[in-house]
């Protein structure tokens, strides 16, 4: 059977495009991962304290910390508290109205399945509406990283979304 010229051209075009798509398409074991972290900030008015609970996929977090510290990725996704805190101080940063960095202290972590919950706290600090936040967690690993921050201060609620390269935004 002689294949018509048009069909030949269509099929050739299709297979050239297929080869290009195969070369550039997703090759990870997990086809379409959601690269996201979720941070929940709560401001305690009477203590003038800000508490942050950050949920992150443990494997991604361990890979990001390992990359930053230039060491091999741990097999069990474990990250020491000191390394986790150092990473957060670089990538999850509050600044006050004068542009000074707000010091964060570590208040623990907890593993639940694939997810790691990280806790940080800032004491004697202004309410979130007087602070700016920059959240670039894991952005060095994934171009499609999206970090969500939800803030609560009294009756006020706000949500923010950070992507790679985003600058600081008002924390409320």
């Amino acid at each position, binding site marked *: 059977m002689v294949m018509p010229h048009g069909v030949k*051209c*269509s*099929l050739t*075009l299709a*297979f050239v495009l297929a080869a290009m798509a195969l070369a550039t398409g997703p090759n990870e074991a997990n086809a379409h*991962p959601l690269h996201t972290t979720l941070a929940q900030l709560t401001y305690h008015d009477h203590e003038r304290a800000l508490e942050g609970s950050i949920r992150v996929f443990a494997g991604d977090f361990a890979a990001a910390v390992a990359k930053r510290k230039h060491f091999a990725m741990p097999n069990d996704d474990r990250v020491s508290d000191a390394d986790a805190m150092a990473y957060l101080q670089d990538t999850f940063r509050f600044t006050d109205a004068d542009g000074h960095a707000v010091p964060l202290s570590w208040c623990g972590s907890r593993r639940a399945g694939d997810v790691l919950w990280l806790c940080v706290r800032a004491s004697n600090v202004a309410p979130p509406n007087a602070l700016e936040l920059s959240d670039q967690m894991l952005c060095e690993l994934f171009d499609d990283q*999206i970090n969500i921050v939800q803030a609560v201060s009294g009756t006020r609620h706000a949500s*923010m979304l950070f992507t790679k390269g985003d600058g600081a935004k008002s924390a409320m």
Partner: protein
Amino acid sequence: MSELATFIQLGFRHIVDISAMDHILFLLALAAIYRFRDWRSTLWVVTAFTVGHSITLGLAVTGLLTISPGLVEFLIPLTIMITAVENIIVRDRGRTLWSGRYRPVFAGVFGLVHGAGFASYLKSLFVDHVALPLFGFNVGIEIGQVVVLVAAFSALYGIDRAIAWLRPPPSAPAPLRLRVLAVSSLVAVVAAHWAIERAPW
């Protein structure tokens, strides 16, 4: 920004990103047989797909349905491949079951599989309150799909122009059929490659 707007953005960005190539190719395979004037049929098919993935996403995130992520990752390219192969095999839709109007049904069924793919991530992160994130994420995905479809129709128009420029001989199939063959062959080959790569055995 409101919490709802945040999750709409999350869903939208998730579907229009290049790493969402599996969902983009599925939409391309669904759209490949239509002309722009068939936009109503396309919208029906895509809406059925959205309803399908919303159902499993909701069931899986709320814990009512548990599916192995490995199996889902394998089934997703399989649904894409079946859609593309169906495009190639069926020449005259007027002579098929329900005159070809079964496509929304199978888009809905395949949507069930794709929804399970989204679910594993959302379930892990949004364990405490899931209703609003889920709703916003779904709305964002729906908006993203419309954007992907507009881009897909633009690409299909470009392919139609390329076929016209090639001037196929009179003995060749109709230009629409050539376009369906080209696009569906591409999608089928890529999806088969992914299915083999992600086979759970």
